[in-house]
């Protein structure tokens, strides 16, 4: 068992209260940086995709996991990010400007639509965000000169300081670019959550009436959280556009919104780590299903590929199982396993007996 002796308040303020944790985090980042030398291009592209999903998951986590605002419309913010970035770059704006601008504009859009929606919560907010999604989809088709309408738009190849970050030509570089963005956003997110702004998000999530009594402006806080959430999702959308290369509005279907919700719920609502675990699961699942399918086909001769919608059914089953048995998600499961090992052999079964408390988000107040 590990006991942390704290000698100054800084130990609590620091991102990692124990040097070992910081070491592990650095090790993980190091591994991610070295990944292009360890795996082939196929898996590197998959890893890039997972990172993009983790980024989008972090975006949604700010709203759903940390402020208690369910959104079914986050595919719209992915779309706005992707189209803004691609359209700006097609107009000759360099990536270094177009990319942050895509995040900023998506964030502003999110904050603005959040203002009338802030009085809603739970299922009402979910429906309102779904409506926003539908409107954005229509707008994309209407703004054909910019968005290419039904036929779509190409996200140009990225060049920074004369170095190519082309998704196909220089996959290593493209991967590192995504990794850099993900690391920066994760760092900012973790900072946010240890500062007054992040605490005000949690306060609004857990008790609005108390948050007000603390002097927190609930409307403004929710709009800020929703804006940041959309902004980060917009950045992910921009990268997704470059990853796909050429896309139209169909890339950002409502199923993307639902998959994003799965990422944060299965990963662990209210934990930044949850966005990563959820992204690994969501992007890894089709691979696992494909492998299973081939295996079954070869060994038993059962062709699961002939069953349409199998992936969707499996996703749904997993989500339902998680909500019933593990509402804290993969990250919650991991915390329990870790505690068990730390306390070994002292851990008792009922230590993890579930307190039936759900986040307000989950209760669909």
């Amino acid at each position, binding site marked *: 068992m590990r006991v942390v002796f704290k000698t100054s*308040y800084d130990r609590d303020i620091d991102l990692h209260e124990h040097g070992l944790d910081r070491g592990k985090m650095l090790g993980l980042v190091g591994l991610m940086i070295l990944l292009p030398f360890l795996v082939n291009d196929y898996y590197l592209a998959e890893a890039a995709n997972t990172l993009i999903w983790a980024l989008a998951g972090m975006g949604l986590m700010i709203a759903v996991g940390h402020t208690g605002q369910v959104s079914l419309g986050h595919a719209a913010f992915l779309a706005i990010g992707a189209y803004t970035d691609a359209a700006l770059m097609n107009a000759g704006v360099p990536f270094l400007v177009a990319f942050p601008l895509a995040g900023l504009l998506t964030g502003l859009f999110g904050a603005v639509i959040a203002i009338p929606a802030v009085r809603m919560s739970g299922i009402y907010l979910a429906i309102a965000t779904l409506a926003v999604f539908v409107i954005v989809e229509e707008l994309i088709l209407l703004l054909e000169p910019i968005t290419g309408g039904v036929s779509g738009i190409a996200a140009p190849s990225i060049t920074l300081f004369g170095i190519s970050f082309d998704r196909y030509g220089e996959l290593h570089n493209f991967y590192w670019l995504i990794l850099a963005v993900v690391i920066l956003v994760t760092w*900012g997110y973790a900072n946010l959550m240890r500062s007054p*702004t992040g*605490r005000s998000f949690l306060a609004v999530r*857990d008790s609005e009436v108390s948050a*007000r009594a603390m*002097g927190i402006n609930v409307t403004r806080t929710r709009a800020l959280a929703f804006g940041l959430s959309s902004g980060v999702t917009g950045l992910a959308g921009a990268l997704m556009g470059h990853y796909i290369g050429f896309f139209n509005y169909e890339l950002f279907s409502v199923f993307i919104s639902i998959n994003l919700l799965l990422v944060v719920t299965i990963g662990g609502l209210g934990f930044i780590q949850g966005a990563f675990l959820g992204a690994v699961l969501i992007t890894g699942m089709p691979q696992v299903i494909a492998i299973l399918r081939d295996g079954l086909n070869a060994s038993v001769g059962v062709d699961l590929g002939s069953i349409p919608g199998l992936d969707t059914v499996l996703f749904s089953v997993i989500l339902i199982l998680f909500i019933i048995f593990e509402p804290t998600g993969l990250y919650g499961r991991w915390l329990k396993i870790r505690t068990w090992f730390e306390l070994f052999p002292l851990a008792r079964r009922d230590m993890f007996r579930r307190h039936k408390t759900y986040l307000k988000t989950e209760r669909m107040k």
Partner: protein
Amino acid sequence: MSLLEVEDLAVHFGGVKAVDGVSFAVDQGEVFAIIGPNGAGKSTIFNLISHIYQPTRGRICFDGADITGSKPQDMARLGIARTFQNIELFDHSTVLDNLLMGRHTHRQSNFIQDILFLPSVRREERLHRERVEEVIEFLELEAYRNKRIEGLPYGVRKIVEIGRALAIGPKLILLDEPASGLSVEETQDVAFWIEDMRRDMGLTVLMVEHDMGLVSQVCDRVLAVANGKPLAQGTPHEVQADPHVQAAYLGTPEEVAV
């Protein structure tokens, strides 16, 4: 001089006159209690003072200014802190974070500085932490500092909520039934803390409480209400002896006789 003045306060919910013409004034440094039977309108008076409800009629003055019509989120900045009858803590956060949330009105940083966690944010965090540690020491919450609220016993949560109100650094603290559900020892602790709040922190305390032992022990003056209307006001002894108050608690003498 009175810190809080309530004049002819009333709020009606449809036909229900939850509070109807209540007036009182709480002096600077005083411990003032509102008592009354269940459903008398005590918590509603608190909700009116903290502006969760807007009054149908009447005026609320605090620290020499008319604050009627303010927003609930303005109260902390003015210096009015409160606890809730049914504990309203941030359940998924630790005790420490709950208390730090009480420091919200004292924050200087904006969200961009927070995202970058500039050195100024760290300096500020240390200061907030020092204030919060004073509260933790005062209420002897050291053992629970890093525990999440959801797993804590009822009595501890009640005290954490008082701590969170104190972390705001208020002039006036509203305590809604601070001793309800507490053991005799815990109630005695609450009595000492209220004394200390007044004496050492210079706080003014307005509380709702059913435990007349606690009220007599710590309160200077008491207001009794029933059915939203004031019944009597005075020292705890005077109010307890008042025939109207006795009737409100026990029913009218005839009913008692039956």
